[in-house]
């Protein structure tokens, strides 16, 4: 710390935000150099919730390590599991039943809506509006109930396993999804009335935290953060997995590059997810929900990489196998880690109050960054 203070000029102020601060949504610690109210530098200090899931995974079997990944990006736990399952399946070379593929995509898109809804409420709260947070939790609760019925969990799902999904759908699933769709469609209009078109909100978001297309690529941004700068990077479209290649899905792009563009991209993505769910919910093929796999999984010697689109961006799983029961090395490429690294670039020259809006617009989930 003393060295950092040495680098600053006279009159600069160094303040800490976090690790315990409501707007960091977890244990993120930012050391901010200020000149007056203007941000000169933002330096993230990570690791407050680092559990070294990569090291743990090296001593877990290919069925077990997936459970740890639910605890990284806990708002996209389905999609984390999905990425890991896909990576293991590459090595197993099993054919996944179509029913399982559809269920996975359905669950993934419901997760995306749940995650984006929570982000919407939290972002609005960050910039000073309390009400949307309660609206967001009301809607998310329905999704949690719906998942609980099928998966038995509300947060750490552990539902997608190599070969398919762990259980078949609950008999109520289709009915409840239909109920959710019709309810949520009316709510999205309410969200726009409450927040999207709100003059105060627009003032807080427009022109704040700009990042250009080139910089977004260079910083390795992905997901809505990159797409709001006009980078086409939706893994579901570019490298379709499971049945994403067969559904109608539009990649949401915006060239604003600021917090408001990131906001708009996520709002539109919710509607895209709804559309995917609507296409699939009445066309779930019958059949098995899981392919037959051996009791003990072993991947042939080699390297495997799978990438999926979580609510926050590109999640990659890199497995190096030596042909044993446990992986030799696993690397999780988490979207939040790269997105966070751009925060210094986005916040420089902005006011300290805007930093909270920038953080909110990045949709950070700290365990996803620290792993």
């Amino acid at each position, binding site marked *: 710390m003393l060295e950092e203070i040495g680098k600053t000029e006279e009159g600069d102020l160094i303040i800490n935000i976090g690790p315990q601060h409501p707007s960091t949504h977890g244990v993120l610690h930012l050391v901010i150099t200020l000149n007056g109210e203007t941000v000169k530098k933002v330096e993230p200090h990570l690791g407050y919730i680092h559990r070294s899931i990569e090291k743990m995974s090296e001593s877990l079997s290919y069925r077990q390590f997936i459970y740890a990944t639910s605890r990284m990006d806990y708002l996209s736990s389905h999609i984390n599991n999905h990425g890991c399952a896909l990576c293991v399946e590459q090595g197993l070379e099993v054919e996944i039943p179509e029913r399982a593929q559809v269920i996975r995509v359905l669950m993934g898109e419901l997760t995306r809506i749940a995650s984006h809804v929570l982000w919407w409420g939290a972002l609005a709260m960050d910039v000073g509006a309390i009400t949307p947070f309660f609206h967001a939790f009301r809607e998310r609760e329905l999704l949690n109930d719906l998942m609980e019925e099928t998966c038995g969990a509300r947060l750490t799902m552990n539902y997608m396993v190599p070969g398919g999904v762990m259980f078949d759908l609950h008999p109520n699933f289709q009915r409840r999804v239909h109920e959710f769709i019709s309810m949520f469609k009316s709510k999205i209009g309410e969200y726009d009335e409450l927040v999207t078109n709100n003059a105060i909100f627009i003032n807080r978001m427009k022109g704040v935290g700009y990042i250009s297309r080139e910089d977004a*690529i*260079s910083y*390795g941004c*992905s997901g809505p953060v990159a797409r709001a700068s006009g980078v086409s990077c939706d893994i579901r479209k570019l490298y379709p997995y499971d049945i994403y290649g067969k559904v109608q899905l539009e990649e949401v792009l915006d060239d604003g590059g600021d917090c408001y563009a990131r906001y708009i991209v996520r709002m539109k993505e919710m509607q895209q997810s709804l559309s995917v769910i609507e296409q699939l919910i009445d066309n779930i093929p019958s059949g098995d929900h899981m392919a037959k796999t051996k009791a003990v999984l072993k991947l042939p010697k080699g390297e495997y990489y799978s990438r999926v689109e979580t609510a926050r961006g590109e999640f990659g799983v890199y497995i*190096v196998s030596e042909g044993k029961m446990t992986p*030799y*090395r696993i690397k999780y*490429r988490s979207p939040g*880690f790269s997105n966070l690294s751009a925060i210094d670039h986005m916040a420089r020259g902005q006011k300290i109050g805007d930093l909270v809006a920038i953080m909110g617009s990045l949709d950070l989930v700290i365990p996803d960054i*620290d792993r």
Partner: protein
Amino acid sequence: MTSEALKTAITALLPEAAFEDGREWLNVRIEAKDWKAFAERLRYQPGLDFDYLFCLTCVDWPAHMDMVYHLTSTVHRHTVVVKAKLEREDPAIDTVCDIWRTAEFHEREVYDLFGVRFNDHPDLRRLLLTDDWKGWPLRKDYEDPVNMIKL
């Protein structure tokens, strides 16, 4: 570019580059000393334009370490995996964070967990662990009797 075309282009860039069996993508093995110049060509040479470094990591083998870089191009949509072998004793390689800004954080992470030094890195400090942490946890010979639970 297809993998075959990439292979030709890369051989023209760096004749010493060796190719390995990749499942999905072209795998290139290079010498650590060639990395910086090679990375610049991969990034800026028209036709290659590898502008997106989507994964940077390290693998600890019994006798050596491998740096693994996953690169893709948002223009041409081709992907390449570059690997460089490092000594286990005092591993070091040039930084590429001036070419791909995302490398700054990823290299700090690799330094933190594997102890790989990145030459000319502007801010090479521990990222996830505390500054006074001893050892490099993701190395295979790392032992920590307090924090590690053997399963």
